């Protein structure tokens, strides 16, 4: 019995009762926090009954550290005590926007991902479907970052880039020379422009473009994209700035169509993919959006799959392509494109490979 328990223990969530205990136990594992409105929200209470009382969410939490935190409205002294007992003097991380939710936090207290939309939290099944890939991504990202800590030079930069391509918020300080808690031993050679990615500001691009001619703007954007280090979302933002500059200064409809198509094709299922599609309808095909055609109750399918909200103040991670709702255009209509297709998308080599994880496993074995 003990043997079975010992074998299974890494697969079971470690349920803890205080936040500080969760932080201290987590190590490189994620902490999953179930937060719910405890004294004001009947929906939260129903979710609590389903997820926690009936123990239904625990299987999805797997190897993580698991904590339940009740959130009170105008708490009574007793409720204040209960909360203080769990949270101590620590505060919940920023980026939690709605209760009930499942927050994925690292051992430094940084919110790395969260399941909080109504659609995701409506049942144990939908919450599990959203949480599972997030925990997988956490594990992958931590492994890459762990390897990056031990690496140096271009390899280090490359590993961080791979980690940042995973659909999860990065830990604080990653890829930054200053205040980098996870910089590790080796110095990083940033030949691939990782710092540019980390410090990318789309509004700065807009400002730069403002006083440029079309040719200058084209050269500027193409040059940035050619650097290859930027995430799909960042490249879409560059394209949005470029197309916006051209549109406001009287570029032809065909040129706009080509640019917006290129922007959309970078990641058709993302928000900016949809933006580009909307821009084509609006400014090329002159079709205004009529909200009355969309029933109030309709929700996008993309909401029903994993969506990880970026925490404000951090670099938006490169989103994984999302599932397009059936019946929609799919975002891949055959429209004109530009010469940049080859440069735009990340190569397959950029994605984390199984080899990386095996190496990690070896390293762990060595460490033990």
């Amino acid at each position, binding site marked *: 019995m003990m043997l079975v328990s010992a074998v299974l223990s890494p697969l079971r969530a470690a349920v803890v009762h205080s936040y500080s205990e969760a932080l201290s136990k987590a190590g490189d594992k994620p902490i999953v926090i179930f937060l719910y409105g405890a004294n*004001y*929200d*009947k929906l939260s209470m129903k979710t609590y009954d389903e997820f926690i009382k009936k123990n239904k969410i625990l299987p999805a939490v797997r190897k993580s550290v698991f904590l339940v935190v009740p959130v009170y409205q105008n708490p009574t002294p007793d409720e204040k005590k209960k909360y203080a007992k769990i949270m101590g003097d620590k505060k919940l991380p920023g980026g939690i926007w709605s*209760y009930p939710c499942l927050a994925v936090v690292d051992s430094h207290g940084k919110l790395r991902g969260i399941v909080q939309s*109504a659609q995701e939290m409506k049942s144990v099944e939908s919450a599990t479907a959203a949480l599972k890939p997030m925990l997988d991504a956490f594990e992958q990202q931590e492994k890459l970052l762990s390897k990056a800590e031990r690496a140096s030079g271009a390899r280090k930069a490359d590993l961080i880039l791979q980690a940042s391509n995973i659909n999860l918020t990065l830990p604080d300080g990653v890829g930054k020379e200053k205040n980098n808690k996870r910089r590790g031993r080796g110095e990083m050679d940033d030949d691939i422009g990782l710092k540019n990615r980390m410090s990318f500001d789309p509004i700065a691009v807009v400002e730069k473009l403002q006083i440029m001619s079309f040719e200058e703007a084209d050269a500027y954007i193409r040059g940035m994209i050619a650097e290859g280090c930027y995430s799909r979302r960042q490249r879409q933002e560059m394209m949005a700035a470029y197309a916006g500059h051209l549109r406001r200064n009287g570029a032809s409809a065909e040129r706009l169509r080509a640019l917006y198509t290129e922007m959309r094709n970078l990641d058709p299922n993302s*928000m900016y993919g*949809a933006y*580009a599609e*909307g821009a084509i309808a609006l400014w090329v095909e002159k079709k205004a959006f009529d909200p009355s055609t969309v029933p109030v109750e309709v929700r996008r399918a993309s909401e029903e799959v994993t969506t990880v909200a970026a925490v404000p103040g951090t670099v938006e991670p490169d989103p994984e392509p999302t599932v397009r709702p059936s019946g929609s255009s799919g975002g891949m209509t055959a429209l004109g494109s530009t010469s940049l297709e080859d440069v735009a998308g990340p190569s397959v080599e950029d994605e984390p490979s199984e080899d990386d994880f095996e190496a990690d496993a070896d390293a762990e074995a060595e460490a033990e």
Partner: protein
Amino acid sequence: MSPNLSRLLIAAGLVFALGFMCYPIFYSVQEPEETAVQTRPEEGLAVTDDTTPVDDWTPEDEEPEQTDETVEPEITTITRPDPDKRRILNRQDDELYTEEDVPEDPTQKKVPEARGHASFTSSLAQVHRLKKRLERESQKPYKSKDLQPVVWDNPEELYQVLAKRVLTKIEKLDEKSILQFMQQPANRLDLARINLIRRTGSEELIRVASLPSGRGMLTMLANDLTWISGVLYSGPSVKLEQALTNMELIYRKHGEDFLHPVLNKIGTIAAMEFAREGWNPEDMMARYEYYSSSYKQELLNSLFDTLQYWEMRWVVGCAQPSQSVGNWGEPRNLKWMRDNVRLPAEQYLGAEGQLCYRLRNVAGDSVFSSAYLAPVLPYVNGTTAWAYREIGGVCGALSHYATYGALASGLPAATMGEPGHCAYAIRINGEWKRGNSIYWQHQLSKTFFNEPEWDYLILTENLYHDFYTTLVADQLVAMADFLGARRKMTASFNCYELAIKVQPLNWPALNRYAGYLKVKAPEDKEKWQRLHDSIVDGLGKQHYNAASKLLVRRVYPNLAPMIKDRNKLNKMYAGLFKNFDGWGTNRWDVIPTLDAQINTYKTNEDKKVYMREVVRVLMGKPEYSGAVLTWGLKYISQGLGKDEAAQDDFTDMLVRMMGQHTRNTRKEQDQTWATLGEAINAATENNDRRVFQAIGKLAYRKCKDKFPKKMKHRVKSFPGRIVSETGIIDTATTLGAGQVASSCLHWAVLQKSGGAMPGKFEGKAGVTVGLEKKSQLTGVICVTSEEKVKDDRPFYIEVSNDGQNWNRVFGNGVIDGAQIRFDMRQEKPTCQYLRLLREGDKYEPGIVGFYVYGKQER
């Protein structure tokens, strides 16, 4: 028969026939059927003697038991209406005080004497008991069955029956009898029915009754004391005919809901608020269905379940209901926010942090253009909040996001405008909190009294928080209205006076009484004086802004002309300020009050005495000292016409008083600094160079430590003297409260030692300097607080002789580190005003020095 005789007989016949036909117009054809009214003896109710002090109110447990259930006979025998006979056509206009076509009651014709507190004592004891009774009754709502649907065929006649019944029951028409009458729920229900008929109008009620479910709804409403009280006494009940029409629409579709206390409130308030605001009935139905279905599905914050009718107005009556993109109150948006921004009440304060602050989207489109959100709308299903969460926005979007997050979950909240900014207010644990606020001036988007300032928000909260007291007062006002209409003048006055005594915060009642007084006793000085004192001692104890506005609008115009003695008038005006302890509920604009007071004086001598007195009083209250100086300076420049001698006289007096009353001790220096900062800011707004300089010098004398000792940067001068030293300088940016307090440093920007001033350059917005005299310029130097001035866009100078028409004279200033320099030795332009501008986007460097070199013209 002669032809003449036959003509005569025919004419006589016609006259008779006409008279017969017209008879019903002038005389009642059928007397209203007498309904058996059960008059009740006083049942030994312990009424405190008039001389009993208020503190000796009879304890609750000693109060003799009374049976609340007064079974009224059914009113079913209403005659069909005769269209020519209706007299209560439309009594909506509260200000008209139209009287009904009833004979005057000689015993009630006289306006009673104004009363002191002592004379209210006995009545207040009865009021106290009534309040306790209302509290108890809330546990067991009173419903009657005596009205039948048929009565709505002729509401006019129903009114007559009810009026007779009420007057018979009251008997003596003194306060004691009236309050005794009001102890019974059946009587209060009759009073409410009367109120409903009078305020809706009989024709409109007939129209509402003719709607598919109209009769049933009206009957249910008029038999339910809680519901009808929710309609009439839960805040503004205007456009009742439309409100009832709206209500019928909801009732027709969701009639059963009205039996449920919470759904009843949602339906009632949706109907009333959409009528009040003039919003579309279709949107009202969507709003009702959003909140009722969310409530039924238990998706709202639990606090929503406990909201009363008046509190529901904030939530169910929230703005922007029509179903189109950009409207935050439309169902699609509310649903999304309800499901995706679910927080405890406290956390909605700051929920705007979920959005990025962005003036432009990543495509470079301005947040103020339609292109900003348009392409992303299909992605977010046209959901406004979702779109802004994806794209970001500025203060408007951020504040709406937090506000409507709370509203969508059923919590009271409202957006509010501030100068150049949008903020919001959320009610947390019964207390209103400001969110995303940067300034003291708030214009709330949702109000009860059409008064958007913060003080009225708190007044509304305080008024209805003391719900049962206000309910008593509102019913007394209803009684006063009814009695006034029945020509019972004495009783009507007594009820009004008692109502405002019972609840001194009752803004609508105070306004109503003042209006009544103006019509019925415009020259009764004692009554006006009593009303004035009631406002100062009641409302004016906490709500300085509201009290001042009421006095200015309603009381001063009527009372001031009756007070001939200047000193007494000064004393009365100063009486308003005696309660001021800080700003009250919020900083407010005292200037209109001072303007109103000074304008009641005819001569400049009287005005000067008043100004000296008010400056003396208010300079002793630190918060007001800056504002009163600002007012004084403004009044001198604008209120005295073109009388320059008077202007000089007033200015000298004011500057002298400023010197006398501003504090000298180090401890009080901050207050002096802030006061003079406000005053110099006002001088800038008035473009008053002389006062600007006078205050600047005074500040330098009094608060030397606040000024820099010398300019940090070395400035290489141009030929000539600094002609701007005696000028006035203005910045295009909006100053926050803290910046206003430091405005004397703007004066120092023109001095060699240097000062500090926020700069703003964007198109025609820049820094403007008015010189003492027209001058021939040799150069201009602007020293900024930047290490290096941004050089991607050119700076240039425009000049003017009148401050209105500008000519560009010198382009592309030379940037030298922190300085922008213009060498004008070649052009030597002549002007009295000049401004420094920069092309293109907004740039806001601080300004520490601004020097115009040249030679003044003689």
